[in-house]
């Protein structure tokens, strides 16, 4: 039923919590076994342009790995990640039940029934595994309409650990931002399983720029920001990161990153926050609209 408003009353479209759980379960399994076509196309292209013979060999192994993952249903990477979600909730849609619980139940079923690794500990210092990869990290947005759009991006920690937030000064300007991005990518180096995808958030506040950077990772590789200076910076930084020589597996070459995706947001007169979220070549995401 579409959401319609009548004088004095509002009819909301209703989605069952079980439908959300089922979709999330399927998305967990899908994202961990198949990469989206933008990522596979970008990896294929890099095999042609990589100049190091060992680098080319590694890229071919990554291609073969994707084939085996899909055909034999073995996760692309054993680190099947912490389940990160971006959820867009239309103002005219109602979920029949607790949405957060429904998503976590989907993660529980997806990671258990899908033979995915449970990589979450319940307390950051006590460190006992929760056994079902819950809880997920969920970012909600309220949007117009009567749809519920769920994006999952399971995040591996080899690359997550190499991510950074820089609270720059306004005077640091464009050069400061570029140096921050380059520093994070170089420090990540072989540890982050290159070729990487680099998500960048510029502006906002301390936490806003980190979410912008995370969200930048789900933008298809090869698609640029619509703001002209941002798009130019994306291209320049991709070129500069690939000139570092880190290469596939960090063992030398010209394919260090497949994309640099930058998102921006207004910020405070006193600040210039920059977050750099590094993702490995297993940049997973799946989207469903309910």
């Amino acid at each position, binding site marked *: 039923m579409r959401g319609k408003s009548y004088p004095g009353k509002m009819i909301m479209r209703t989605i069952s919590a079980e439908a959300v759980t089922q979709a999330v379960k399927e998305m967990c399994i899908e994202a961990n076994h198949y990469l989206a076509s933008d990522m596979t196309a970008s990896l294929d292209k890099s095999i042609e342009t990589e100049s190091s013979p060992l680098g080319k060999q590694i890229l071919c192994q990554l291609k073969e*790995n994707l084939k085996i993952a899909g055909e034999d249903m073995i996760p692309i990477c054993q680190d099947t990640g912490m389940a990160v979600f971006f959820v867009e909730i239309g103002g005219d849609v109602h979920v029949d039940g607790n949405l957060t619980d429904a998503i976590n139940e989907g993660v529980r079923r997806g990671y258990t029934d899908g033979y995915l690794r449970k990589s979450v500990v319940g307390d950051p210092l006590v460190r006992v595994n929760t056994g079902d990869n819950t809880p997920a990290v969920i970012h909600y947005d309220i949007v117009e309409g009567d749809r519920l759009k769920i994006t999952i991006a399971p995040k591996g920690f080899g690359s997550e650990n190499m991510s950074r937030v820089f609270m720059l000064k306004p005077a640091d300007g464009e050069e400061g931002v570029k140096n921050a991005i380059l520093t994070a990518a170089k420090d990540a180096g072989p540890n982050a399983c290159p070729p990487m995808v680099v998500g960048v958030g510029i502006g906002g506040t301390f936490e806003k720029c980190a979410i912008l950077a995370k969200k930048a990772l789900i933008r298809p590789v090869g698609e640029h920001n619509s703001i002209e200076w941002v798009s130019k910076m994306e291209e320049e930084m991709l070129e500069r990161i690939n000139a570092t020589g880190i290469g596939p597996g960090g063992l030398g070459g010209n394919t260090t990153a497949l994309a640099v995706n930058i998102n921006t947001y207004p910020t405070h007169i006193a600040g210039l926050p920059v977050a750099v979220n590094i993702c490995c070549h297993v940049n997973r995401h799946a989207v469903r609209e309910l």
Partner: protein
Amino acid sequence: MMDKHITAPLTQETIEDLHMGDYVYITGTIYVARDAAHKRMSELMAKGEDLPFDPKDNIIYYMGPSPAREGRPIGSAGPTTASRMDKYAPALLDMGLKGMIGKGRRTEDVKSAIVRNGCVYFAAVGGAGALLSKAIVKSEIVAYEDLGAEAIRKLEVKDFPVIVVIDKDGNNLYDVAIKEYCKE
């Protein structure tokens, strides 16, 4: 750079012949341990107690697999970042551990321990866990089953593909290869 086939556990003779950049296929028995297992082993060592396996001449693979589907020995099984084990590695190398498989940079302390004891650090391709699982023939948990993916495992591997990153002389492929392709 050469393709080599070796067997594990390692002998000193094998290690003498491994050089930075060699592409190596390992066949034999290796052990698996990552963060939580290293922490427990380090606590045992502090108390002077025996470890769940004798590190002498062995290789430790830094890895935490995804669960195996029915009929398969293991799930996805690629390397994890080795630097998180840097705190624990020198003591194990001094106890006779001969090889480590992981990905990413090591500290100077680990490099010194590699040279001091005549050992080797291999990298497996990160994010190729489905492909690498095909070289694992058998997997059995030998300790810390409660740690799930972080339990200590004993693997039988056949032609498991790795690259020598730090050899017994302390040559480091990450430093050399990245410089070679750097255009900054």
